[in-house]
Structure formats: structure tokens, C-alpha cells
């Protein structure tokens, strides 16, 4: 028994020290290894999803990290993450940077560092056509979303009487909506339009015109990884200036007629 306890303690200690060692200079490390490991979504068009023809992960998020890696002179290695797994994966060193539709908020910023906002949206709902006119119509209803997302926390605040059902990811939430198991699916508008676009029966659904929160997205990096944060910030500001950022926006959102209502600027 005593031996077992010691063994556990040694194991725990090694994991902890291994972690501490990782909070170093990711920029230099990536340059040395020639590869930047990126945590991204793989089923969330148009941010990160698998292209049907090439079988590669593509999207808005991917184009941003590709541009950053190009500037660094390294290759990109994409690792699919979920909303719930991405922060632990970053902290444990499985990935170097999160580019996975991640909303910047104060609680998260205590644990990791964010880049400047590279995308800006607001949280809305998908519902069956004509069933919901305003937020009031959703009181006491069942609402689907994905685990570990800010959407889940926002909707609980905005609709305390509603039952929030958290699925593993958005495709399941949409399936539940189709089958009437939930009356609405909620998350950021930019994600909703992507989900809606992939839905088999698009004409049955709509996104009513009201929102419950602002959602600025940032690229997530380990706390104190200042060199990488500065490099990323500098790069995306340059991308804004050169018009590349706007071009990426149009490439992915042009077909949805979404207006680019933001510019990438330095956070105050």
C-alpha cells in the first residue's frame, strides 16, 4: 500500500514538473521544431471543418493560423479539439495555440492568454421557422448547445427558466432540434449560419433577429507565453492592414452575405 502511494506521488510530481517545463517560449520551440501545433474545430463550418473533396481541415480559423505559421516559417499541424477539451489540451502542451472559435472572456483570460480579437460576432438562436419571434418565446423551453462553450453560460443567464441541454457538439444539437427534442439551438451567429448551411432541410429553420451577447474571438495561448502572443498580435494586425484579413473573411462568409462589422485592432 505504502509503495502504491509513493508511486502515485511520483507520477503526480512528474506530470506537474513536466507541465511547468512547458510554459516556456513556444515561438522559439516551434521555430526549432519547424512545426506549430494548432487546436482547431473539425466539424464547424466555416471556421474549421473537413472539406468534402480534399479531406483536409479548412476554414476561417485555419487560414489565420496558416498565415501566422507562414510568417514564422514553420509548418502547421492541425489537431481537432472540442470546446471542452481545448483549454486543458493547451495547458498540458498537446497543442501550442487554440484557433477554435474561442470567445475571449475574463475567466478564461485568467488561465490563458488571448490574441487581439480576430473575429467578432454575437450569440443568437436557430429555431424552426415561425416558432420564435423574440427571446420571450423561449422562456421555459428546452434549448440545445455544446458542452464547455460560453454559449451555454450565456443562455443560462439570459433565460433562467429554460432547460439547457448540452450536447457533445453542434451537429447533435441540430439533430435534436430537427426532431423537436429542443426548441432552439444557441451559439454564435457565425457558427449558426455554418450549421444551418449544412443542415439537410435548411428551409425549415431560421435565425430570428435578436442576440443575447457579444462574442469576440481570440487565439488562445499558454499564460505567460509572451513572445508568441506578441508575434501573433503583430501578424494579425499586419493582415488587417494588408487587406488579407478582410479577404479571408469574404472567402468564408461572403456566400452567407454576412457583413464584416469589425476590424482587427489592438486590444485596450
Amino acid at each position: 500500500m505504502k509503495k502504491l502511494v509513493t508511486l502515485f506521488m511520483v507520477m503526480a510530481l512528474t506530470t506537474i514538473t513536466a507541465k511547468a517545463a512547458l510554459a516556456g517560449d513556444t515561438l522559439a520551440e516551434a521555430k526549432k521544431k519547424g512545426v506549430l501545433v494548432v487546436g482547431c474545430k473539425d466539424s464547424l463550418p466555416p471556421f474549421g471543418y473537413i472539406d468534402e473533396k480534399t479531406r483536409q481541415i479548412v476554414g476561417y480559423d485555419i487560414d489565420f493560423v496558416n498565415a501566422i505559421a507562414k510568417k514564422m516559417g514553420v509548418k502547421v499541424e492541425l489537431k481537432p479539439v472540442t470546446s471542452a477539451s481545448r483549454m486543458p489540451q493547451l495547458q498540458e502542451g498537446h497543442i501550442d495555440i487554440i484557433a477554435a472559435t474561442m470567445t475571449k472572456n475574463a475567466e478564461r483570460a485568467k488561465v490563458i492568454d488571448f490574441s487581439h480579437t480576430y473575429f467578432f460576432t454575437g450569440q443568437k438562436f436557430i429555431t424552426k421557422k415561425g416558432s420564435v419571434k423574440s427571446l420571450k418565446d423561449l422562456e421555459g423551453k428546452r434549448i440545445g448547445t455544446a458542452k464547455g462553450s460560453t454559449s451555454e453560460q450565456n443562455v443560462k443567464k439570459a433565460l433562467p427558466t429554460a432547460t439547457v441541454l448540452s450536447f457533445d457538439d453542434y451537429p447533435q444539437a441540430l439533430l435534436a432540434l430537427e426532431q423537436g427534442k429542443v426548441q432552439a439551438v444557441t451559439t454564435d451567429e457565425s457558427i449558426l449560419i455554418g450549421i444551418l448551411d449544412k443542415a439537410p432541410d435548411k428551409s425549415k429553420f431560421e435565425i430570428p433577429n435578436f442576440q443575447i451577447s457579444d462574442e469576440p474571438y481570440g487565439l488562445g495561448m499558454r499564460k505567460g507565453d509572451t513572445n508568441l502572443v506578441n508575434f501573433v498580435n503583430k501578424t494579425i494586425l499586419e493582415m488587417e492592414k494588408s487587406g488579407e484579413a478582410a479577404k479571408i473573411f469574404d472567402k468564408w462568409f461572403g456566400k452567407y452575405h454576412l457583413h464584416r462589422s469589425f476590424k482587427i485592432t489592438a486590444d485596450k
Partner: protein
Amino acid sequence: MLTYRFDWSIITSGQYFDWLVSGLFTTLKLSAVSIVFAFLLGLLIAVMRMAHSKPVRWFALAYLEFFRNTPLLVQIFFWYFGSYKILPTVINDWLNKTGFEFAAAAIALTIYTSAFIAEDIRSGVLSIPKEQMEAARSAGFSYLRSMQYIILPQAIRITIPPLVNQFLNVAKNSSLAMTIGVMEMTYQARQVESYTFKGFEAFTAATVVYLALSIVITSLVNLYNEKVLNVHKAA
């Protein structure tokens, strides 16, 4: 240098504690319901598997192979999402209004586990010398009555250790119910993690709870074994 600071206070009181407790109760409810029904259903399937009628035997065999050899997660999705296509609209509407998550998870767990339990019981029955069945039949008992009064009481006793395993599996497998939004222990632990980023604390609590649950199940069955069936532990 430690990069992670433990903070147990967040899970020992307040809102997050309440979440974990409600998760515990859902896990207990889900496990209890599934264990009871899986046992009864498993008993039925085991008897069918050994029946004389060929179609009945084949049905039981098909049931066993199908539900033992497909992943539980797939089965949970099947009952939750797949049943929609089969059931009439009236029933679907009613299910959707009342919330079908818990029931779908319980059905999936029950059926999945019953297949394993049936095989455990069958192996117990097969270990009883077949002369006993022959003697019972020649004494005038029907097949079902011989099973009920002579074979099963002995077989169940032999089956108890593997049954305990199945019960423990139910308790742990119930965590998969979170994929369809059942707010059980693991779901709540993950919820606490995503709100507080205190994953270590939340999942440690969940681990302790599952461990305690397993130990309680094992002790209860052992107690039953000793006190009711008078089986004494092997030296």
C-alpha cells in the same frame, strides 16, 4: 514550480457542490433503474436462449450478439435519435415535451447490460449438472417450473461474482449518458470544469464518488451472498 494551484473549496460547498450532488443522484437513479431491469431482462433472455423452441433460441441469440457487440455509445444514440424515425408523431411529441434523455439512456444501458447478464446466467445454469433438470422433468415439473424452483436458484448463486461485475459496469457506463445531455456525475464534473477551470478538483470528486459507489455495490452483493444465500467466502 507548481503551475496548478489546487482549490478544493469550490467543490465542497456552494453552487458547484450542489451541481455535483445533483449529478450523483442522477447517476444513482440511472444505475439503479438499469441494474434492476437489466437483471430481469437478462434472466428472461437467458431462459429463452436455452429454450426448446428453435425460433425462441435464435431470437435470443440474435439479441445477445447484436447488443453485446455494438458500442454502448452507438446504442445510446440509437435510442435517443434513431427511435424518432420509428415512433409515431404523437409519442414523439409527448417524449420531447417530457424529456426523453434519461429514459433513452436507461433503455440503452438496460438492454446493453442485459445481454451480458444473460450470458453470465446461462453459464451459471450450464454449470448445474443436466441430470437435475432431467430429474425435475421426470418428477413432473414443467420446463419453466424446473428452471424456477431447481436450476435458477443454484445458478444465480454461482452467477453472483460475474453479476457484480456487470452491476459495476452499469454504474460506470452510465457516464456515457452525458453525451445526450443527461446531467449525471461526469456531466456535472465537466460543467464545473468549464465554469471554473478546476478540472482536477471536479474530476477527483467524480472519481471518489464512482469508487465509493462501486464499493457499496460490491459490499451489498457480498452481504446478500453471505447472509441470504449462506455462501461463505472462499478461504
